[in-house]
């Protein structure tokens, strides 16, 4: 029958595809294992006694597994408070960065005016400076404003960075100007174009900006360290560093905490990466 003939003709092709897929997956999994090696060490160290962490050669499987580390950490340091602070800061900063960044990017990408490009280059050159270079003047300014040891200080420092502006601007450049022009003819003003045309089209870029800002804020150590003094204001990264004392360090607990602190990021990542599936975005440009 025709179906069997068809099947017979297709078998070699699909078999080849199956083999191809298998090889691809094997390669992917091998690469994944290699990439995850330091992460594996992190988990392994988090399950050890502190004195067993830095053995030479590395002991990959703890001979005396300390599952209780994962329970003990919650009582040893105020993890819940640290988590709450970190979540709050990360969400607020991410929200503001995405909002002001994508808004300003429209000005840089789609509106032509004098001084635009100079201002833009200034923005970018400034992000090249390591924070240590202007940390002290900035701190003095914050003291004068009475903002040290408040969440507001960190929010102000991190929410208005140039990173979001730059990222979104580059993305907007790929959206054809004709689309904006068409919308203008339809009677939309510039703010309407931004909100109704550009934003919906830039979901992948918004997702990546949000994801990267969230992770950067979540993992930031130096910023919270300098600005937040009261222990009730500390973030996870400060909590993890508190396992390093002056003369002795509890690296096992630190790794336990590091593993725990990665989990929320993983959830956010798996949620956000759904926007990177090709085909979701349509340019709206037909032909």
């Amino acid at each position, binding site marked *: 029958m025709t179906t069997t003939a068809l099947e017979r003709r297709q078998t070699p092709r699909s078999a080849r595809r199956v083999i191809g897929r298998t090889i691809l997956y094997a390669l992917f999994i091998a690469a994944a294992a290699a*990439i995850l090696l330091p992460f594996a060490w992190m988990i392994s160290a988090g399950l050890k006694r502190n004195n067993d962490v830095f053995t030479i050669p590395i002991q990959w499987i703890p001979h005396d597994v300390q599952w209780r580390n994962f329970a003990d950490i919650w009582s040893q340091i105020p993890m819940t408070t640290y988590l709450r602070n970190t979540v709050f800061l990360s969400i607020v900063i991410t929200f503001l960065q995405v909002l002001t960044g994508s808004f300003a990017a429209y000005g840089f990408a789609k*509106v032509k*005016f004098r001084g635009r490009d100079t201002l833009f280059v200034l923005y970018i050159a400034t992000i090249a400076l390591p924070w240590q270079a202007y940390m002290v*003047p900035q701190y003095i*300014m914050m003291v004068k404003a009475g903002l040290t040891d408040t969440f507001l200080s960190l929010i102000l420092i991190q929410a208005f960075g140039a990173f979001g502006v730059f990222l979104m601007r580059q*993305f907007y450049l790929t959206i054809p100007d004709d689309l904006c022009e*068409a919308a203008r003819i339809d009677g939309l003003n510039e703010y309407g174009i931004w909100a109704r045309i550009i934003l919906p089209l830039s979901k992948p870029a918004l997702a990546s900006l949000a994801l990267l800002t969230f992770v950067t804020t979540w993992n930031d150590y130096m910023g919270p360290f300098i600005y937040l003094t009261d222990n009730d204001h500390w973030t996870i990264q400060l909590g993890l560093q508190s396992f390093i004392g002056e003369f002795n360090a509890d690296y096992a607990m630190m790794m336990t905490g590091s593993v725990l602190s990665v989990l929320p990021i993983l959830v956010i990542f798996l949620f956000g990466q759904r926007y990177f599936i*090709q085909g979701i975005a349509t340019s709206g440009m037909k032909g």
Partner: protein
Amino acid sequence: MTDLITASPDSPSVLARPRPRRRRSRGWRNALIGWSFILPNLIGFVAITLVPVLAMFALSFASWDGYNPPSWVGLKNFRRLFKDDASMTALWNTLYYAVGYVPLTMLAALGLALLLNRKMRGVAFFRAVAFFPYITSLVAVAIVWNMLFNPQFGPVNQFLGWFGVHGPGWTTSTTWAMPAVIVTSVWRDMGYYMILFLAGLQAIPKELYEAAEVDGTNAWQRFRAVTVPGLRPTSFLVLILLTVQAFKVFDLIYVMTQGGPGDATLVLAQQIYQTGIVDGQYGYASAISVLLFALVLVLTLIQFWFNGRRERK
């Protein structure tokens, strides 16, 4: 496409009023609109970042201990900078790092993005894996990579041994510490920039691929004709971000080698931290920062210029 352009307000058919006046008022209107978009971010940026940066510029001409009033010393800090072996070493090391780190990370990130920009089972998992190095604790990164690079027992040198190559001391060698640090940095950051490339790939209209496929092109031709130009703004973004990142690198190197052995991996950011905050010579540290700023500014301008030329073509 063409009908959209002819319908735009600039087309002759709509041009009724005298041109110059309209142009000028439109320029004003545009400026107003442009600034209104930029302002919410700009106000925060100027107040929180730009003002301290300007203070830093001023301090580069002063001697300041971080406490007592600064005193003006003119160009003394800059003269010291070009005589100071440690700062010059840091400058060369930073350039060395950038030359290795920027292209390698770019290639790795692009490769990962192309590989993982497809519909397949478990792709979310593999993307997460590629991103994991970026969120792995720096201590873990330093320990495991140092172990991999261990001159006697490390897998890297064992692997080289199979080919009869006697591997170097890597992070314990002044010659090989920097390459080792670069490799680790590329491994750590490739997932981060992969995210940007993945987002960039979504911006390329699917229709362009379909059209190219209809024209009977092969995958490589499609990559050249559709992906490469479509990714240009993203590649530019990643290139600039990587350059910036390379010039202010600090954390990973510090955890891995503390700038050593000797000063083999001492970079500008560490030198700024060391001279400013640790030694309390903020004027001198600011002068190093100004040098770093100028360097990146020039590189950024060059990249902008090249990018603009390519776009105009």
